[in-house]
Structure formats: C-alpha cells, structure tokens
C-alpha cells in the first residue's frame, strides 16, 4: 500500500533534513497514527505520499506505484485514489455543503447522475443529512470537518490522509470525527493520520509511528501517544 525505503528529504533553507532515512511500510486497511512534535517531519511525510514533494533520496511507493517513476500527468490519477483532510478544513466558503462535496467529483469529470446519487449518500455517512444546503460558515467546526471528510471520501479512495484533523476541535467533537474515520477505515480504506492528540491515540490503540527530527524513533502496533504520556 505504502512503502518508504530509506527516504530522506532536505529543504534548501534548512540545515537539518526534514526526513532522515525513513523506512516505513503500511499495509492495506491499516490505521496508522503519525506522531511527533512540530517539525518532526510529519507533514513532509504526508506530502511525499501525495507527490506534492519528491524525496531527496530513497523511494516512495504508494498504491503500488513508484512515485519517482510516475510521470507528472499521472499524478492526478494517483490523487483521485487518495482522500485528504486537514486541520483547517479547506472548504470553499462560497459553496454549500453539497456543492463543496460535489466539487471534488465535478473537477474530475464525474457525470452529473453519479454526483447526484453519491453526494447525499456520503453526507448521510458522515452524519450531515439535511444540512446539504448550508454554507460552511453556518456550521460548527466539527460539522465543517465532517464536510471535509465527506469530500475526501466521496470518491471512495483507497487511502485517506488526515493532517491533524482534530487540531481545531474540542475533545468531544474530536471523538466524533475519530469515530467517523474509524468507520471509514472499517470499509477497507487505509488511514494515515498525523496528530498531536495524545488522548485520541491512547484511546484508539492503533499502530503508532513516531517521528523525531526526521527519523522514525518508534513503530508500534496498538501503540500509545508517547511513553511519557
């Protein structure tokens, strides 16, 4: 599903590499927490999976493809199989909930009939039935993140990448979002989630990969956030 082989990434503006010899393999259907302090390389890790960036050295395989050999015009096809959720939701403020979710399908050229069928289904899945006509600013933070999850999942991706999806949410709302991600994971979608939220990691008891200064310092199935926590 995902395999990083001895991956390093240096940015020209920094003396220390953002990732330093990372070897990680993630199987299909896994739920993996990526933990570590700010600047530990979590975001770089996720960017490499999307081919938003290329590694300085090493190989990245995602969904059976060697990203170094993936020609630029095939990158969109890769991204269609990956859903993304972010801390700041990234909804379009001038579109309704339904339009926001439909946008993700429209821009990859899905026929209108399909869109009209699957958008209400996914809104129901994330618990937003009846709110399709709302604008994002009429929703709570938790609801907005549900819209973002719906948008990420509406095309039924093989892989869902979440970059601190609960970072802007209160603990109770976060639990709701985590239940949703867990439900999505149970449909067979692999989930990779970067987070700072110790409580969530400890309660879910899933695989934990900890990064520190660009190195993998811990890779533990059914792990917790940190030894000290």
């Amino acid at each position: 599903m995902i395999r990083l082989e001895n991956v390093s990434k240096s940015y020209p503006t920094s003396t220390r590499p953002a990732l330093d010899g990372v070897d990680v393999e993630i199987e299909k259907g896994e739920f993996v927490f990526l933990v570590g302090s700010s600047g530990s390389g979590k975001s770089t890790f996720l960017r490499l999976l999307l081919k938003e960036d290329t590694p300085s050295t090493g190989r990245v395989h995602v969904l059976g493809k060697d990203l170094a050999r993936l020609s630029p015009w095939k990158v969109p096809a890769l991204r269609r199989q990956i859903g993304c959720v972010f801390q700041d939701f990234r909804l379009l403020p001038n579109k309704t909930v339904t339009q926001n979710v439909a946008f993700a399908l429209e821009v990859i050229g899905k026929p209108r009939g399909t869109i009209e069928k699957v958008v209400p289904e996914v809104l129901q899945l994330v618990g937003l039935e009846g709110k399709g006509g709302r604008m994002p600013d009429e929703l709570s933070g938790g609801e907005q993140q549900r819209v973002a999850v719906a948008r990420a999942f509406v095309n039924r991706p093989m892989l869902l990448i979440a970059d601190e999806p609960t970072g802007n949410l209160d603990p109770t709302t976060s639990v709701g979002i985590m239940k949703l991600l867990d439900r999505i994971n149970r449909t067979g979608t692999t989930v990779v989630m970067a987070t700072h939220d110790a409580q969530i990691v400890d309660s879910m008891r899933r695989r934990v990969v900890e990064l520190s200064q660009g190195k993998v310092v811990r890779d533990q199935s059914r792990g917790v956030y940190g030894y000290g926590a």
Partner: protein
Amino acid sequence: MRAQFVLSEIWIGLRRNATMTVALIVVMTISLLFLGGSLLVGKQVDHMKGYWYDKVEVTVYLCGETSSAGNCGGKEVTNDQRQQIGKDLAATPQVERVFYESKQQAYARFKEQFKDSPDLVANVTPDALPESYRVKLHDPKQFDVVASAFQDRPGVDTVQDLKKLLEPVFKVLDGVSFGVLLFSGIMLFAAILLIAIMIRVSTFSRRREIGIMRLVGASNLYIQLPFLLEGAIAGLVGGVLASGFLAVSKWFIVDQRLRQYIKFTTFIGWGDVFAVIPVMVLTGVLISLVASYLSLLRYLRV
C-alpha cells in the same frame, strides 16, 4: 469533461475580473482593428499597383522649341528623327505597343486632365506641350533598357517612367501599412501583458479552488481550461468587435469618402475586408490562448 461546469467556472472568472476583462477586450479590439487596418492598407496598395502597373507607360518626349535637354540643341525634332525613333521603338523586343501623341493630342489630354483649373488651361497653347511616344512595355521593370537606348538619341528630350513617379506613392502607403502594423504589435504586446496580469489575479483569487482541485486529482487540463478559455473568449470578443469596427471604417472612409473624390484608382472591396476578418479573429484568439498558457505555466504550478 463536463461542459456546463467548465462554462460556469469561466463565467465566474470573467465576472470576478470584470474590470480587467473589459480592459483586455478594449485593448484587444484596438490592436486587432489596427492589425486589420494595416492588412487592408496593404491590400489597397496591391490594388493600386495592379491598376497602375497595368497602365504604366514609358513616355519618350521629343524635342520641342523650348526643350532644354542637351541632345536637343535647342532645335525641334526633325521628321526623320521622329520616324526613326518610332521605328526603333517598335523594333525593341521589350516593347509591347507604341503610340504617337502629337502636340494637339497632348493638348486635348491636358485640357481634359485640368478641366477644373480653366486658368491653367488658358495659359497653355498646344505648341507649349511636347509631342511624345507612349510606350507600353511587356514588363514594366524593363524600363532601364528602353531608357538607356533612347535617352541620348538626337531628337529625344527625356524618357519618363510612370512607374518611377508612382513608386514614392506606394512607398508612402507601404510605410503607412507598416506603421499601423507596428502600432498594432505594440498594442498586442500590451494585451499580452494584460493577460498575464489577469491570469495572475484570477489564479490568486481562485487559489482555494485550485488547491482543492489539485488535491482531489483534477487533471491539469481541467484546472487550466477555464483560465485558457477566459482569455480566448476575451480575444474572440475583441476580434469580433474589431471586425465590426473595421467594416464600418471601410464603409465610412472608403465607400463614403475616398471613392467619391478619388477617381483615378480602384479601391478595396468587401471581399478584401472578409479576407482580413478571419485573420484578425484568429490572431486575437491564438494570442490570448498562448499568452494565457504561458502565464499559467508561471503562476499556476500544477
């Protein structure tokens, strides 16, 4: 590819940048109008060349009492000289036809030419005008051969080439055509810069949408197409407006003015205008597309 979605994106983009779109259309219109104008002036020159070169004659003026040329020696041409020159002209291979024009005929033509200035005609008598041979050449460019053969003959005053007289006129018109083309080029350059700014602004104002499109795997074409078509539409509208203005200008300047007052040449017709219009519209659309694409490469990293 869903046409309706692309069209609505284009509409949103054009409306969001309404001021800039209008500016672009205005600049496009002006530059394309001048492009068309330049092409039409060029066609007009061709028309005039065709009209005049068809009539172009070399005139061999014969010596008269008042001739000042060296080989006249202040004496009028003799009958023998006149006949010999006529025969030799007819025998020259470059010559197609030779007509003799007597003083009386020259006077008649003079009167006809200057019938609007009776004072001038009153002051001229048939004797003051030179007799001449009007020579039609197979190829107007062969003038020099004829001129050098007859220039220094006794009894010949001067050899005059109508083409040499017309050449400066055509040079001026060619210059006008080039100047207008240059101006059009400068305006088109301004249009290209406007497109670059427009793309920069509209990619910035739509950066959220673009970010999400990239993220969910929209193809480059899908992301770029609305921007490309925005530019192309502005180019198309500019081209169509410019074509309209060009047609109106042709009607107003050529048909309503020049044709009324200037009778000695033919003018461009509607066929010429319709030949220029596709060039203008295509230039507008293609320049917009190329400029948009190059700007997108710069401001929209996919």
